[in-house]
């Protein structure tokens, strides 16, 4: 809890710092009037909350109020990317995701000229991105162009793995907070999580299922280690309880002995 609060405080701090000198935001907010528009959307985005500002993606000079200076293409301003430019636009930072996406049927449709065809902003929006969940795969979004059944199978497969990963991470964390070293398990889980999350943009159920199956043994190995450590913790607690019982008996025996010894001295009062 405290960590979340700290992260949010830090993020707010960063975001205000980054967006403080932000002529892009100021002008576009004004231009949009009462909205809607990118500037109105922007404060809700997870990118904003993590201190990313307009110029970080679009280029340009946020410190100038002069549009000719702020949006000078010769000086690196990119403007609004076209649909086929979007993957590389977001891929500047999200490289591995872009690489996965480019192999998918969605990318092939996009570059073959099918319109509409999904690129990043189709599912993630341009200025309202939130932390990803599997619910980005849903009948409304996916059903726009084709039937939902393939997406449903994908979501189910990924969902199962995600649930296992989350519960295993929770178990590992509980053990860690009890003082047992789980560095190896943390590293393995980090690795598994990355391999799984990279699958989200491959979109071919025939590629995803084998990969998920390949990850299972590693997950099972971590589960095994975590179970062993959990058992270790329980064993220790049992030993502790036996000791406590012993001390309890000792305390009572000592006090009772004391009372018996003191009886003749307290009797006549």
């Amino acid at each position, binding site marked *: 809890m405290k960590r979340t609060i700290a992260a949010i405080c830090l993020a707010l701090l960063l975001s205000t710092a980054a967006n403080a000198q932000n002529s892009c935001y100021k002008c576009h907010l004004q231009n949009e009037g009462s909205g809607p528009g990118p500037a109105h959307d922007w404060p809700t985005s997870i990118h904003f909350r993590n201190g990313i500002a307009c110029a970080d993606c679009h280029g340009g000079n946020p410190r100038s109020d002069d549009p000719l200076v702020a949006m000078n293409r010769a000086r690196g301003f990119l403007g609004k990317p076209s649909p086929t430019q979007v993957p590389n636009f977001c891929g500047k930072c999200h490289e591995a995701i872009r690489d996965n996406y480019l192999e998918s049927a969605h990318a092939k449709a996009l570059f073959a000229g099918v319109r509409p065809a999904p690129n990043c902003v189709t599912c993630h929006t341009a200025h309202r991105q939130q932390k990803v969940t599997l619910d980005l795969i849903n009948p409304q979004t996916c059903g726009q162009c084709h039937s939902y059944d393939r997406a449903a199978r994908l979501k189910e497969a990924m969902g199962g793995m995600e649930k296992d990963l989350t519960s295993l991470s929770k178990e590992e964390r509980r053990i860690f907070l009890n003082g047992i070293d789980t560095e190896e398990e943390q590293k393995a889980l980090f690795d598994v999580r990355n391999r799984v999350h990279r699958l989200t943009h491959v979109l071919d159920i025939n590629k995803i299922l084998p990969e998920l199956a390949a990850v299972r043994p590693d997950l099972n190995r971590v589960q095994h280690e975590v179970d062993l450590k959990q058992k270790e913790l329980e064993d220790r607690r049992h030993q502790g309880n036996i*000791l406590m019982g*012993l*001390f309890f*008996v*000792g305390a009572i*025996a*000592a006090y*009772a*002995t004391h009372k*018996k*010894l003191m*009886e*003749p001295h307290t009797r006549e009062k």
Partner: protein
Amino acid sequence: MSDVPLDPEQRQSEPQHRDTSAQPRRNFLEWLLGVVVAVSALTFVAPMVAYLSPRRTRKGTNVLMGSDGRPVPYKELNTNPVVAGVGVNGEPTLVVKYSGEVRAFSAVCTHLGCLVKWNAAKSEFLCPCHGGVFDANGVNVSGPPPKPLKRYKVFATAEGEIGLEEVRA
């Protein structure tokens, strides 16, 4: 010498005779207390003894470890006729190439424990401490060492390390 009570106002109260009327009950309590104290003491001492116990020798393949803490690769022997290292349980070991075969010996001199060095020119091990000499078979041939050097069979492991197997004479 009489008692020297430290408190100047120390004085004997009525002599503390045991109150015999409640004897059996108090005896059981005292016995119980004694047992619990003794068992508690044991439960403290036992973990401390375990805590101080020496590290268990590691089972599994014995491989030669370099000074960087990692196994020495077998191909090291192609470039170096003598490879020095440490076995997994910490014993200094020398691996030498002699008349076409690879041999390994414990580098610990059997006299007083100094580390021997391989002299390729003379094909012998020399101990610098008291001049003990071992031949190319590890047999003690000169000086104070009473026994031959411990010998190992050398093999390449699946991971390309230098495996050592103790040869029981």
